[in-house]
């Protein structure tokens, strides 16, 4: 694996001059796409999302690699088509280059409206990496809740008010759903850790077959944070165990990072304006429930790591 300094010297997939918000961390991973692997050229597809609209306002494009967008809920399917045409033309001797395919969607386009086409693409075994950048709401349309929105967050469709503390109930665990597809590679990564992220991108891209990466990516206006706080917000998400960094290779879990100190989830939450309303004594029960859910999820992953290693025969 090349160092980040070496990688930065390579041509990135994504040019400056795009119209993402100031401080948005999404371009961190789009620039990496062509830098993590040698020997393959990358073709990308996008679901409708912030990245799609901010990178492709006609007649401009931030994309230096071939890139296609068709609709919101279907990047799994449209990229299935692109990847299949590659195999068809390769078989017929009309193309010889080694290419790899990446599909990108936000959590709305992936956890919700695009879940079916994602599932189909992964189940059919296309040589395709799907990257979901999870910022926990429909940010492109103005911060409406998605099934990735964490409990308690205020959004424009789950606003906190006299009768509501914001989003009710627990978020969907999409990474687990993707593990259940029995594909070769599933990982959770975070935008704040470029070394871990680039290694995961490299593994996913170089794998022959479907791979899925769920990427924690804070949203400046949606999380109600300062433009220089995206990386720190993501780091605290990982340190508080809200967003465990792990990967599942052929069904075997491996936790990539174990926080050294106990960081309560409130440190992550109250950095953000979307949870600010919960920072009151009367919402102690809600905050406790969020903390409990974080711990339950972390413990579940630890047990999965133990169990999957045992079942794989790697540990006696």
């Amino acid at each position, binding site marked *: 694996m090349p160092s980040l300094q070496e990688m930065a010297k390579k041509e990135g997939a994504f040019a400056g001059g795009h119209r993402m918000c100031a401080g948005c961390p999404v371009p961190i991973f789009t620039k990496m796409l062509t830098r993590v692997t040698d020997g393959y050229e990358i073709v990308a597809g996008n679901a409708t999302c912030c990245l799609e609209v901010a990178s492709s306002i*006609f007649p401009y494009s931030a*994309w230096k690699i071939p890139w296609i*967008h068709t*609709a919101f809920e279907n990047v799994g399917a449209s990229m299935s*088509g*692109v990847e*299949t045409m590659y195999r*068809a033309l390769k078989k017929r001797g009309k193309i010889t280059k080694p290419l790899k395919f990446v599909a990108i969607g936000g959590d709305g386009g992936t956890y919700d409206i695009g879940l079916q*086409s994602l599932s189909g693409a992964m189940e059919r075994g296309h040589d395709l990496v799907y990257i979901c950048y999870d910022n926990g709401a429909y940010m492109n349309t103005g911060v409406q809740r998605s099934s990735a929105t964490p409990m308690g967050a205020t959004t424009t469709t789950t606003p906190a008010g006299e009768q509501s503390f914001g989003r009710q109930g627990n978020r969907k665990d999409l990474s687990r759903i993707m593990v259940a597809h029995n594909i070769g590679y599933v990982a959770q990564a975070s935008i704040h850790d470029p070394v871990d992220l680039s290694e995961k991108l490299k593994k996913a891209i170089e794998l022959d077959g479907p791979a899925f990466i769920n990427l924690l990516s804070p949203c400046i206006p949606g999380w109600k944070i300062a433009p220089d706080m995206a990386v720190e917000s993501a780091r605290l998400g990982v340190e508080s165990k809200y967003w465990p960094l792990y990967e599942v290779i052929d069904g075997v879990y491996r936790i990539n990072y174990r926080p050294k100190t106990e960081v309560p989830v409130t440190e992550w939450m109250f950095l953000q304006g979307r949870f600010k309303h919960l920072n009151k004594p009367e919402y102690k029960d809600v905050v406790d429930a969020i903390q409990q859910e974080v711990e339950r999820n972390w413990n579940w992953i630890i047990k999965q790591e133990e169990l999957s290693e045992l079942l794989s025969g790697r540990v006696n």
Partner: protein
Amino acid sequence: MSKIVAITGAGAMSECMRQINPDVVPAFPITPSTQVIEDFSQFVADGKVDTEMITVESEHSAMSACIGAAAAGGRVMTATSSAGMALMWEMLHIAASMRQPIVMTLINRALSAPINIHADHSDSMGARDAGWIQLYAENNQEAYDNLIMAPKIAENMDVRLPVMVCMDGFIISHCVQTMQLEEDEKVKAFIGEFESTYPVLDTDHPATWGALDLQDYYMEHKRAQHMAMKNAKDVIQKVSAEFADIFGRKYELFESYRLKDAERVIIAINSVCGEIKEVIDERREAGDKVGLLKIRSFRPFPYEEIAEALKGVKIVTVLDRSESMGAHGPLFVEIRTALFDASEKPMVYNRIFGLGGRELFMSDVHDIFEENKRYLETGKVEKMTDYLKVRGG
């Protein structure tokens, strides 16, 4: 050697797809188009084609994969019906607007509700503004011939639009008829090699596909799409003429059947035209000057040509096998528009028939000609738009 075969309409389409051997076929099963995909899957399994199939999890994904595959730079085909195409709805527009020359067999079937698996045109007529070229067929032979011509029309550089090849569910898709199956090599030679435009797989010339297009450019792109559809009218005729030279069967934008000196005319689409022709032959024997105008290309719609063909006609009954709730039938609306500027306008009225597969028999067609005879004699259309053969009607 070309040969006469007995085959279902759906079977004819899968045979044609075998002959074309497209690069990629994304497909999802739905009655009554399923046989097209089943037969084709067997051709793949038996190595009779080397197409890559994508057995998608929905029709929405089928059309999405068609768009991705076509933009990647190859020939793409699929098939569907009714609710399947309704689920593709969003992507039909995107396929056309992204100018992808995808070819799709549409076996016409009624839309739900109530759920019904039989023929009417509510699916394709509902999609008439999706930007697809729509070709219709009376029987297996015409559907097969349209499918041979479709890639050549779609891929023409003045067009680059998707084509929908339509036939009636069950009545044609599931009925065995005899037809001329052409030689594989002749079909392949007629269609030729696929030429790609800015393929997504060309990493040396990276293109951005599906960009956000706002107030400053959107209208120019829509107009360019409209111009391509206008060009398609000439291209359909040109390709049909080439087809006639090679295979001997002649097609126009519409078929004029005993129209030349006809006074009373029915205009219709698809399989019902077979019965209408039989009735016309019977009535002509008795000296009745009746004729048929059968639509082949509904999009683009040949307004001027139809107005010209109807010169001298005194009354026209337009048969619609679908309806537009709260409006006249979709074919009727186009025909009336076509005739608006004619110097001598015939009387024109509309009958809705055959929804959900309800049969129209030869005796019913005789009744239509009796009715329009009465209207012509009295000079009065008693009912402008009405249902045929319906309880409480």
